[in-house]
């Protein structure tokens, strides 16, 4: 259970201001939406939070602690997990192996134990595989366990990526366009999953273009346009805000 706060976060690179003074919060138990036209800087926000990009200005805090200067692996270890816009799974590995990769931080075996090939190491590994299968069961995908990740349908690959992120036992989950390319039915299923996760106490940030999903799922929303925050609040308020409609060039009928 942790909250994520961004305080006047900015990022410039190569003379472009990708993000200008963004202040927002992602609270536990709630689904926060981040929307905006393409190029608005949404993925940049996630990259900044996870440490893949350096801040130019501002602070990012996790439960009050400043994580702005931390390298990406340290941010992940603190319980901030993410998925990627273009699904990044290891295609040559099985579904189970992909999820087990997410359990890296749960494996505390020592270097000597690993080098000597002790039975304890194998037990730990088997345990992680078991936990991966439990996750698969939760998502009703057990029989896909041994399939190569690259052979799955898009929707299933998305779920595997989410499961991998959950393997980190995160308190914050950042989802970058999770419903991209999905049918309404699939997107709704995903939405139900996210709702469940939020109810368990996770702080979810969802970047999405699928307005239907976002409006029905999110507890609050932030709207970016050209790196600036133009509106925030409850979905009903955001939906009817003239600046938001204009940003989407005539807007989508929500």
């Amino acid at each position, binding site marked *: 259970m942790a909250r994520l706060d961004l305080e006047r976060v900015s990022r410039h690179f190569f003379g472009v201001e990708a993000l200008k003074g963004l202040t927002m919060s992602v609270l536990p138990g709630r689904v926060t939406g981040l929307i905006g036209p393409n190029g608005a800087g949404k993925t940049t926000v996630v990259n900044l939070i996870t440490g893949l990009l350096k801040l130019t200005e501002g602070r990012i805090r996790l439960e009050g602690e400043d994580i702005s200067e931390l390298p990406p692996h*340290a941010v992940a270890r603190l319980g901030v997990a993410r998925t990627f816009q273009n699904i990044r799974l290891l295609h040559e*590995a099985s579904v189970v192996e992909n999820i087990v990769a997410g359990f890296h931080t749960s494996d505390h075996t020592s*270097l000597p134990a690993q080098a000597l*090939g002790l039975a304890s190491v194998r037990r730990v590994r088997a345990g992680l595989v078991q936990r991966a299968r439990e996750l698969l069961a939760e998502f*009703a995908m057990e*029989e896909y366990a041994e399939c190569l990740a690259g052979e799955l349908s898009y929707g299933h690959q998305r779920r595997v990526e989410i499961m991998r992120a959950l393997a980190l036992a995160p308190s914050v989950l950042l989802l970058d366009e999770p419903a991209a390319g999905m049918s309404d039915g699939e997107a709704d299923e995903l939405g139900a999953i996210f709702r469940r996760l939020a109810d368990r106490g996770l702080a979810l940030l969802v970047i999405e273009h699928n307005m239907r999903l976002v409006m029905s799922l999110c507890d609050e929303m932030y709207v970016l346009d050209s790196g600036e925050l133009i509106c925030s609040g409850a979905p009903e308020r955001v939906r009817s805000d003239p600046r938001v409609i204009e940003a989407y060039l005539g807007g989508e009928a929500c």
Partner: protein
Amino acid sequence: MTGSLAAYQSLLDLVLLNCGLALSQFVVLRAGVFSVATAGLASIGAYAAGIATLRWGAGAAVGLLAATAAGMLTALLLSLPLARLRGVYQAIATVAMVQIVLSLALYATDVTGGANGLNGVPKLVGTPELAILVLAMVYVLHSLGRSRIGYAFDAIRQDETVAVTLGVSVAGYQALAFGLSGAIAGLTGGLMAYHNRSVVPEEFGFGMLVTVLAYVVLGGRRSVLGPLVGALILSLLPELARPLADNRLIVHGAVLMLVITYLPHGIVDSLQIAIRRRATAASRAQIVGKEAPDGPA
């Protein structure tokens, strides 16, 4: 009779030493580090062992320990600057490192014997010692490969960005890979010194660099069997036919070009992937048979 037996034994020794070098190159490539420093690290190990014995009368155990430590420490030192580089730049930096080592070895005549190298190193290791140590290295790498470290290496190699978001410290694990590579190279270099009874600087130059790289390209860089198979094949090839022996450069060159184009994962890894695909095709067929087009079973 004894002549041909001795020939086979010395061939076995050669294969074992080449396996050691191949394992050193393998470790870094598995972790996604494009380092070709093995030849330079082996050189340092060889000199460490040779000097330890010739100058201070050290026995094989101490000498090999010194060689391993020298290789490992040099590699760890190297890993610091190299952590900032990626891809071809790591390759260039490590090629430069091999040249620097060669250059210094040729220059520091008082310490290293200069161009003549070290001679008169006692033969302190024979086939049994070589076999045991190489097997030990294989065992350790195999065990690590199946543990957290091995999987971290795989993640880093396949997608560094993803690895990092899963809590894997790229710099840390790559430094570890470097250190292991250096230790193995150093140890193998020491074994070479005690087996060949001399340390010749040019032996550890660009030629060895390319050959060792060829072992891993041919065999594969994920499974620990890869470098072993690669080293075995390339070491034995010259023995099969005279023309192959005379045209060593062409053989290595052709192997590199053909393998990287048509079998880029190397022999062992390609086989494993093919077996994998077969196995999952079966399980996939089951699922397709069971479920309706939309939604899970």
